[in-house]
């Protein structure tokens, strides 16, 4: 009887999650795969085949954009980690109890504003007639208006700003669980600052680092608004290609193939990252 109740509650608790995964993730993706295998041969006539994937391989523009998106996303992930780690460490370990809450809240506040508004915020700051350019001119440092917008650096800044929170939150929660005594012990045993960081803090924070990096990388590679709005003439982003295929070219088949390729590619990068750093999902993310 007791056992049945337990099982029932397990099933009840698990059902929403299973339904969510099945209905919103697995089934749509299967639909995408099926769609991506269709080729249009004439109006309203379709055949099954690998044509859309072959097109992708044969057209350097497409895979260049995918590689570009991947490498820029990696850069964003690294930057977010480098900037986010000290912040998270400060919040979790150095700040007092009361400031900690306030600091954490300050990190969360930007998330209350939509992505679009945040991107427009950057546009107002960085454009040729924008705040920064005007201040520089007013202060006499430069004599001509400067355009900061529409280049890859801006895209990276914008993306780091958008996703850094997703790096800080898991880092704070893992670092929070770390006993201060461990750091003290490190110093007592003669370790220098860098040694303590390398041998004690980072290994302890590894679950947070790995999950933060995965989330940030996936979010960046799949982001649409920020690269589109801040990017310049030459900056194409893979999600933009997918949008173009679906919407402006009415080519759902190849759009679906692109979407699936993006998923495979990002999953592969995550897998590769875990392999290279010698981590597994089981002993990092699952523990964080």
């Amino acid at each position, binding site marked *: 009887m007791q056992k049945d109740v337990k099982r029932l509650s397990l099933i009840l608790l698990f059902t929403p999650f299973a339904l969510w995964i099945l209905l919103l993730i697995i089934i749509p993706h299967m639909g995408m795969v099926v769609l991506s295998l269709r080729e249009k041969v004439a*109006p*309203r006539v379709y055949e099954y085949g690998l044509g859309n994937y072959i097109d992708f391989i044969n057209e350097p*523009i497409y895979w*260049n*954009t995918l590689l570009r998106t991947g490498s820029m996303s990696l850069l964003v992930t690294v930057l977010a980690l480098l900037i986010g780690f000290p912040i998270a460490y400060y919040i979790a370990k150095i700040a007092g109890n009361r400031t900690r809450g306030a600091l954490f809240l300050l990190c969360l506040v930007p998330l209350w504003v939509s992505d679009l508004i945040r991107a427009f915020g950057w*546009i107002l700051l960085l*454009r*040729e*007639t924008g705040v920064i350019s005007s201040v520089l001119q007013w202060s006499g440092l430069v004599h001509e208006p400067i*355009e900061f*917008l*529409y280049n890859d650096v801006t895209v990276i800044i914008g993306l780091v700003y958008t996703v850094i929170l997703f790096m800080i939150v898991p880092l704070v929660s893992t670092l929070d669980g770390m006993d201060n005594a461990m750091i003290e012990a490190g110093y007592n045993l003669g370790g220098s600052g860098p040694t303590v960081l390398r041998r004690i803090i980072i290994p302890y924070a590894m679950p947070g680092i790995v999950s933060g990096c995965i989330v940030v990388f996936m979010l960046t590679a799949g982001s649409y608004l920020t690269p*589109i*709005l801040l990017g*310049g*003439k*030459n900056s*194409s982003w893979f999600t933009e*290609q997918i949008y*173009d*295929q*679906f*919407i*402006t*070219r*009415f*080519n*759902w088949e190849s759009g679906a193939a692109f979407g699936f390729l993006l998923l495979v590619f990002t999953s592969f990068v995550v897998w590769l990252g875990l392999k290279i750093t010698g981590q597994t999902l089981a002993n990092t993310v699952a523990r964080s």
Partner: protein
Amino acid sequence: MRLKATLATLLAATILSTASMAQAETLRLLTWGSYAPDELVKKFEAENPDIKVEVTFSNNEEMIAKLRATGGAGFDLAQPSHDRIYAAQLEYDIYKALDLSKINTDAMEKSLLDGVKANTTIDGGVYAVPHQWGTSGLMADKSKAPDLKSWSDLCDPKYKGKTSMRLKRTILLGTAFAMGHDPFAAYSDLDKYQSILDEVVDKLIVCKDNIKAYWKGGDDLSAMMLSGEIVGSETWDSTAYKLYAENPNIVFVPPTTGALAWIDTFAIPRKGKADDAAYKWINFVLQPENVTIMSGSTGAIAAVKGGLDLLPADKKAAVNASFTPADIDNLKFFANIPPGVEDMEGKALEKIKASTGG
């Protein structure tokens, strides 16, 4: 017994309320931003108390994508441009033929009506009638770029870093015209069209260095133009007219090879559920007093007889500042997009976007 009685009353009440709800018809309008001003929607609902209007703002590509996703369900009236009916209907079967007897076609400008009919007739059925028309062309700040007159002037090194365009098919077609081709005539011979496109792509790749940024919507274009960051751009005429109201130096310039003209239409989605309400809306916005309100909001000219005169005064001034009668004669109406062209143009645009500039 009491319970049964209560249940019965409840049931009856539910049936009654659903019945009265069913009577209030909903007109789901899929249209362009500013094509359904609040003022008109309220007026229409006041005249037809049993119809409620729901508006979804979109653009050509998204309208077709939305209707394609549902096979033409979810909306009762759509407003794609005239060149987006024929191929979309052949490929995806998303519209239904119109019953012209229910539309006050006498009010419409005959040449536009005939043009749209000719472009959208499939197997004897007419799939669209015109609503508003306007052009795509150039916009220039007269005080800074008085000589900007042709599509190719956007690539003039004189204006380096001071021009903009939207990376869409309009600029491909405009540039083709400026290079002395007639892309619309080449639609029937896709190999020839491809060779024109290749030339255009080369030209626009070299031109890339001259462009400040590709604009994506009316708002970022307006911001760049008003702030003086750019002095000229490819544009929709309505955007230029809006800016003219704020800075009379900014005018719409019909390119020497002719401004490209589009006509936004009325088309009824295949699985639309409120055809009568849709026809009522079409006839409603054809009434002269409503035309003025509509044009004031859209900045485009209504496809009705004397549409130009029915423009609000400020818009009329902007049009007169831009067009001479010769320019009007020189308009190039977008030709139907045959199957396959979308893909060719898409690839051309990708090449331009992906290249690292001249």
